[in-house]
């Protein structure tokens, strides 16, 4: 039997030109009065994909979800589900179900009645409903809580009831609005993996809205980064992190150091960049920007090495002084003030228990990185 991991690895319909899109946003615009929540946005989601809409609050990601569920209609453009235009179809006739941020459990109904609600609306025969509810309770491990009312449950249990209720009807697509937002950190981490397993086992398409980048990175096959109602980048978590398409994405996901500068010289395989503060950086060719054009070089903290002496073989090495050190247990974060004034964030994994020659405040230090460690951004 194949492990979930290997199934995941082979799953990449977005790279297959013949793959049929499942959910399509086509030039969708949504205005609330004068405010444009979603601006001419196009997006394609594939069947069985775990898709995350990531963005700050108010960026329009929830509006996208609500349009898919049918609570809002697009002002312009259209949304297709499995080739069918959803315009004009009310929420109660759409083959999608939503898990609400507030869970929206019916307070006057027991857990099992909550889960059975959608099935009853469908007109499913009572014995079948009973069977499906039992199945759902088992799925979320709440068998002994069937008769309880929502207010008799803890936050994590409520979340699971909401989940069971929204998948009970076996929707084609499950929409999750900040599904883990109300849980504490530890529970959130556990539940992330539960959600992923659930999605795999049921073979559903998940569209999750979140503002938590770690959550999106952990769970999603692909992430769409949304800002001001527009898609900034759609890519796998690794691509978003390692090859952000713009400064915004680089800043939004994870920590990053940015060097503003110009392309100084372009060789066969490498480009030399002159920073506005004078730093000379050599990077592998990744963009086709011409010499003299303004660019930004972005590099993640963990890809920068901090040493007390200049490494002999380093292509890129900049000198500075330790400005701040934060020991976090698993790793140490250094803030190095370069001699040109720029502060660089670098993190080092504490692989050994005791480090020889530990760097501390005000020590002279060198930061170095490989030519392929960062990306050149033109936007």
């Amino acid at each position: 039997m194949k492990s979930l991991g290997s199934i995941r690895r082979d799953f990449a319909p977005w790279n297959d030109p013949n793959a049929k899109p499942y959910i399509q946003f086509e030039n969708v615009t949504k205005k609330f009065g004068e405010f444009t929540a979603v601006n001419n946005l196009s997006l394609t989601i594939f069947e069985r994909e775990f898709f995350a809409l990531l963005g700050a609050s108010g960026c329009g990601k929830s509006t996208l979800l609500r349009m898919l569920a049918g609570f809002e209609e697009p002002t312009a453009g259209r949304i297709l589900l499995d080739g069918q235009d959803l315009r004009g179809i009310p929420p109660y006739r759409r083959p999608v179900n939503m898990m609400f941020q507030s869970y929206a459990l019916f307070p006057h109904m027991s857990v099992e009645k909550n889960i059975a609600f959608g099935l009853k609306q469908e007109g499913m025969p009572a014995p079948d409903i009973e069977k499906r509810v039992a199945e759902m309770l088992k799925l979320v491990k709440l068998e002994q809580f069937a008769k309880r009312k929502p207010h008799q449950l803890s936050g994590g249990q409520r979340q699971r009831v909401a989940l069971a209720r929204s998948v009970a009807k076996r929707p084609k697509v499950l929409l999750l609005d900040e599904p883990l937002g109300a849980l504490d950190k530890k529970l959130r981490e556990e539940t992330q993996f539960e959600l992923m397993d659930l999605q795999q086992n049921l073979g559903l398409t998940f569209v999750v809205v979140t503002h938590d980048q770690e959550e999106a990175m952990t769970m999603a096959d692909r992430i769409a980064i949304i800002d001001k109602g527009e898609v900034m980048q759609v890519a796998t978590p690794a691509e978003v992190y390692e090859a952000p398409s713009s400064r915004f994405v680089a800043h939004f996901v994870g920590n990053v150091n940015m060097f503003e500068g110009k392309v100084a010289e372009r060789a066969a395989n490498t480009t030399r960049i002159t920073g506005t503060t004078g730093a000379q950086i050599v990077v592998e060719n990744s963009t086709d920007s011409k010499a003299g054009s303004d660019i930004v070089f972005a590099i993640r903290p963990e890809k920068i090495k901090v040493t007390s002496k200049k490494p002999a073989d380093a292509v890129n090495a900049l000198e500075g002084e330790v400005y701040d050190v934060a020991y976090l247990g698993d790793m140490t974060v250094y803030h190095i003030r370069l001699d040109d004034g720029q502060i660089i964030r670098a993190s080092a994994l504490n692989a050994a228990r005791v480090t020889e020659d530990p760097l501390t405040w005000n020590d002279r230090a060198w930061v170095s990185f490989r030519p392929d460690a960062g990306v050149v951004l033109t936007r």
Partner: protein
Amino acid sequence: MNATWSRFNVTSVVLGFAFLYLPIVLLVVFSFNESKLVTVWGGFSTKWYVSLFHNQGLMDATWVTARVGVISATVATVLGTLAALTLTRYTRFRGRILFSGMVFAPLVMPEVITGLSLLLLFVAVGLDRGFLTVTLAHITLTMCFVAVVVQSRLVSFDRSLEEAAMDLGATPVKTFFQITLPVIMPAIVSGWMLAFTLSLDDLVIASFTSGPGATTLPMKIYSQVRLGVTPEINAACTILIAVVAVGVIIASVANKRREVQRQLDEQAAQRG
């Protein structure tokens, strides 16, 4: 907090309660008076309670009041709930401010004016004054109170409950009856009780709009008092007070128990 009882505290508490309850205590005490003279104590007796139940006029008036109260409170609750729903849900329709102003105007309208205008209306349309007109008048009076109570509940109502129901396949009508209505039911019940109580003790509007054969209890008591207060009236009022007090006590005890139960449940849930 300082738990000592200073002389000032004690005095103010005693005076405050005396101000509120002395008249009622006097009324209750004199309902057990042997003497026919209301202000002279003639020994303990319950004979006025016995004669009360033989007083056909008072019993008839009680029956009328009960029927008017139940019918008007029920109709007012339906109308008031609808008004509250409209006002909270459709926040953008034309004339909403005017509509809400008109719904809530009877709250502050002097009862004399409401009564008089209703009387004029009934006369103008040729409706004979009686049971029907008092009931209609009380619906007008109490509907806005129901609307206020229900609206305050609807404002804090989580709309995502309705969205969740629709998302799970319930039509808007089913959503209303299966989700919205059960959730706001406590507010609707309080609205009904408020409307019933208001109808029960209304004298002014009833005097304007009632006719022969539809005398309510407050009207009856008032008219008898004008001929001189009898201990019988004291007895009637004492019973009324007892009924109201028992109702209030039951409601608050039930409320308290629910609250305690809920807290226990929540603690149990926290423990897992």
